[in-house]
Every structure is written in C-alpha cells, then in structure tokens.
C-alpha cells in the first residue's frame, strides 16, 4: 500500500486531454457542429465520414502509391462523395430521413471495409498499415524522443500527428468562424431555424444543406486522417457506431452552435475519462474498492457509466452546454 498517486493521475489527465484522441474527437465534433449546430442537419453517422476520410487517404497510398498530400486530397474527395451519396436523396425530405440514412451508411462503410469481398482492397478486418511510410518520412521529430512541456510529453512518432491534429483543428475553426459570420452562414442558420422561410426569401435550401453536409463531412474525414496518421493503422472495427455518440457528447458538452465549443468539449471529455479510469484503477489496486465488487478489467465500463451520469447532470443543470447560451435555448420553448 503506497496510497493513491494523485500526481500520476493528474499528469495522465492533463496529458490525455491534449492527446491525439482529443484532437480527433474535437475535429469530428466541429464537423457535427457545422451539421447540427449551424445547419440543423441530424447526422448520426459522423463516424462514417471519419472512416471514409481515413480509408480514402490510406487507399490512395496503398493502391495507387500517391504522395501524402495527394492522399489527403483523396481522403477529402471520399468524404465529399460520401456526403453527396447521403445528401442528394435525403435533403429534400424531412430532417429525419438524413438521420436514418447516416446511421445505416456509417455501419455499411465499416462492414464493407472489413468484408472478405473487398479483402484485396481494404485488407478486411486486418486493416491498412502500409500507408504510413510517406508520413513517417515527413515527420521532423525523432520518433524515440519525448517532446512537449510539463505533463504534456509525447513520443516523437505521436507528437507529429498531435501537432497536425491541433493545427488542422485550429484552421478548421477559423474557417467555420469566418463562414458563420458571413452571409453564407446567415443562410445556413436561417435554414436551421425555418427552411420554408428561407426558401420563400429566395434561398435554395437544398443546395445550402448539401454544402453544409459536405463541409462537416470533410471535417469528419480530416479527423479520420489525423487518427490514421497518429495510430499508423486504419482498423475497420475502430469505426463503430458508438463513436458517433461520443462525438455528439463532446459537442453537447461544449455547447451546440458555438465555434470553439467542440474543442473545449473534447478536452474536458478526455480529461474526465482519463481521470475516472486512473482513479478507478488506483482505488482497486489500493484495495479501497474490494475486488469482489470490481476488478481493474471492469474499470473501462464503469468510466462510461460515470461519464453518462455526468452528462445527465449537465443536461439538468446546464442544458446549453459549457459555452451555449441559455437565452437561445429559451427561445426554442416559445
């Protein structure tokens, strides 16, 4: 018995809150924010865009031996095509059709990627690995050294992807911020509020919704590419449906329809998860929680319960999220 190592727990919590996953979740949630927060589109399959972006980039290299930049463009292209496939048939219909189609389509992407029929292309459940070479060559950091300050120390191989992740997130946020203060953003928000009013005023609602779907989808695709570069692998079974709900959680936590909120949401989400996980482990290994109640292998499940409870509390006490405006929420009720 050495007592709970609070220093270690705190260190871990801080480190993970800015780690690769935090950047990936933030990006994916920025995409959702464009969809739902600004355009009012219900996308329950954001993970599909993440997967499509990752696979687009990976396949460009493994199949066609492109360079890394062309590969990224391919990833973006895949996300655009995926958005068109989902949007063209559904965006003229009621909002729920898109929601249904996105859930299904994201699962189809995952099942296709791991199917034996496409084994020669996607390598099935094994996933893609050989795409990473060109990116490793670009990495200016020494893979075996640690980079960063204080608790935020990352190995060179990871650090590269983390930097890319946050830089891309920052650029994306600036893009979203500019769009949403422009007349383009005004039309998109108007469509969210009342599509018919926008149409009566001469706005082609269908076309704007399609643009928003593409934009948010491409941002999701970028999340997938950052993830693939950081993990040096693209595994189909990483892109499971619950991931979409974590992206939603991140968005709601930060506050829907605010430019910066997905970043704050993601950082807090990862800090919370890491803290719970490490605290739980410490409590069990220190014998403060008897193994008859819970052992370390069950911690990963418990942490999500606790996150769920935390989210429920948030909804009760601050339904607008951390950044959202209560005033705007109240308008919905009128």
């Amino acid at each position, binding site marked *: 018995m050495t007592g709970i190592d609070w220093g270690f727990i705190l260190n871990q919590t801080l480190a993970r809150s800015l780690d690769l996953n935090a950047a990936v979740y933030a990006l994916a949630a920025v995409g959702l924010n464009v969809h739902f927060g600004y355009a009012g589109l219900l996308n329950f399959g954001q993970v599909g865009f993440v997967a499509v972006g990752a696979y687009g980039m990976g396949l460009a290299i493994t199949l066609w031996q492109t360079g890394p930049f062309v590969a990224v463009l391919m990833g973006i292209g895949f996300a655009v095509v995926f958005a068109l496939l989902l949007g063209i048939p559904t965006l003229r219909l009621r909002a729920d059709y898109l929601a249904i189609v996105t859930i299904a389509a994201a699962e189809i992407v995952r099942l296709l990627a791991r199917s034996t029929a496409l084994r020669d292309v996607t390598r099935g459940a094994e996933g893609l690995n050989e795409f990473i070479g060109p990116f490793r060559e670009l990495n200016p950091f020494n893979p075996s050294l640690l980079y960063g300050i204080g608790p935020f120390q990352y190995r060179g191989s990871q650090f590269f992807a983390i930097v890319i992740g946050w830089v891309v997130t920052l650029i994306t946020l600036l893009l979203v911020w500019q769009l949403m203060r422009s007349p383009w953003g005004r039309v998109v928000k108007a469509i969210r509020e009342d599509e018919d*009013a926008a149409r009566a005023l001469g706005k082609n609602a269908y076309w704007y919704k399609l643009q928003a779907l593409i934009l948010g989808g491409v941002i999701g695709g970028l999340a997938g590419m950052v993830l693939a570069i950081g993990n040096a692998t693209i595994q189909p079974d990483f892109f499971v449906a619950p991931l979409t709900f974590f992206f939603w959680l991140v968005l709601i936590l930060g506050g829907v329809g605010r430019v910066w909120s997905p970043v704050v949401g993601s950082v807090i989400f990862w800090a919370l998860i890491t803290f719970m996980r490490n605290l739980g482990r410490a409590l069990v290994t220190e014998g403060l929680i008897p193994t008859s109640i819970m052992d370390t292998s069950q911690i990963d499940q418990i942490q999500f319960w606790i996150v769920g409870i935390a989210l429920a509390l948030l909804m009760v006490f601050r339904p607008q999220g951390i950044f959202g405006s209560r005033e705007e929420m109240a308008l919905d009720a009128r």
Partner: protein
Amino acid sequence: MPAETTTGADVLAAVPHEPGAPKPDPIVVVDGMRKTFGGLVAVDVDHLEIQRGVITALIGPNGAGKTTFFNLLTGFDRPDTGHAVFDGKEIDGYRPYQLAGLGMVRTFQLTKSLTKLSVIENMKLGAKGQLGERFLPSLVTPLWRRQEREIEERAMELLRRFQLDHMRDEYAGTLSGGQRKLLEMARALMVEPKLIMLDEPMAGVNPALTQSLLEHVKRLPTEEGATVVFVEHDMDVVRDISDWVVVMAEGQIIAEGPHSSIGQNQAVIDAYLGAHHDAPLDADQEEEWLREDRLELGDVPPRREEP
C-alpha cells in the same frame, strides 16, 4: 373610399364582376389549377387573373383552399394539373427560391420568424444577389463587406418604417406576435418583390399595431411598386385596403369584384351561410355573419376591437 386605393380602383373600373374576369394588365394568370388531397378537392381554379399594381384580397370560409392556392402559386406545393404565368413568364414547376428570385414573395399564415437570428439578420437575409452567400466568396470578407453595409442600410430604413429599429439586435424570438408579423412583412420587402402574397397578415396582431400594419400594406403599390395579394377574414380590413376582392369557396373562385359588390353576391352569401338564404346583405350583417362563421368553426384569430 380611401384616397390611396382610387388608382387601383380606376384601373379595374371596366372589369366585369365575375369569376375569372380578364384584367387590363395581369401580373398573374392561372389556368385550370387543381389540387386534391386524397378525395378532397382543395383547389380547383378555372381561370384567375390578378391585376398588377393593386391590392387584391382573397377571402373565403375556413378550408376554402386559400392557403393551398398560395402554396401552389409560390411553388411550395405542386398542383395536380394547371398552369400559371407570372409577369409574362410560365412558372410551372418552379421552386420557391426561383419564384422569389423572379420577384414573387410570400409570407405565411403561421409566422415564420427565424427566432435565433437577430431582427437585423432576419432582414438582411431577405436581400437578393448577395455575393457573400456563395461559399468561396464568403471566406473573403472584403469581397462582400460593402454590399453588406448597403443591405444593412436598406434594412434599417425598413425597420424604422415598421417601428422595429429599436429591436434591431434582439433575437427575433423575443418579439411579440404582432411584431413578428411586421418583421416578416418587412423582411419580404427586402427581396424587392414585384408581387407580395400575405397569408392573413393581421391575424394575431393587436389593435394598436393593426392600423400601422394596414398603412404599410396600403402603401406597398405606390411606394414599393409591389402588387399585393392578401388573405384576410376580417371584412373591415378587406374593405379598408383592397381594390379588388376574390372569393374562394371549396377550392373554386366563386366571385370577384370590388368589396362593395361582394356583400350583395348570392354565391358568396351561400358559401358563407349555406345555400338557403335569399336576402342580400348589407355590410354590417355580412360582417356579423362572417364572424359567426368563424366562431362556429372555432378558429378565431384575435381581431381588432370596434371603435
């Protein structure tokens, strides 16, 4: 008769008081337009012309098909059959945004204010041909800054006229029902419409605002050069501002004429009261009956009080 409407009435002086009457300069011509919902014939208009530059009232009992007819004309709904011409152009199959682009703008029976946009943003949305509404140009503020300023000036001018300028930065969702109607009308004017179609613009507006709203509508033809079609149940309002009245019942146009001719029209009386009435109505009786008609149907919009 109010002075503002005499020009409109003059133009229509020679037009016969009968359904489908041809007009000297129609901005809208409708032929054989039919729309059914299941077995119900909601709209069945043989022929209708709407005169340019005047104020036309479209009246009729609840469920007559007025809103549906608006929806068909403005592209929000597709007719089963039929044919429409707007400003000399065939518009069959046009989508709402295309029609707005041609200058046909409508408001809705249930007000559609964009609650989480500010009043001024609501207004600016209405302006046509905004470069900043295109994706790539929107990224470069200098490309659209000047246009945005011009639009904002025009918007403020309209807001002042509609006495909403003090609300410019409030969320539209915080406005009262009447103010929302005002905002919706002002916003429609931002489109610079040739034809503005108002579906029950006075419903739910308090008496103090009704007068100012009416004044705005009256001035639209002269000040904005817009033709106005409006749906209204309150006969006071119809009398006050319309140059011409079109009466719908069960989907069909059953009468047309200046408001003075409508109260005497047997088809209209039958439509509102059921077929067994024979005495022509004077204005007060007619109004009372119209009012009872609404009461029976349990759908009374808040209306202005009698002075």
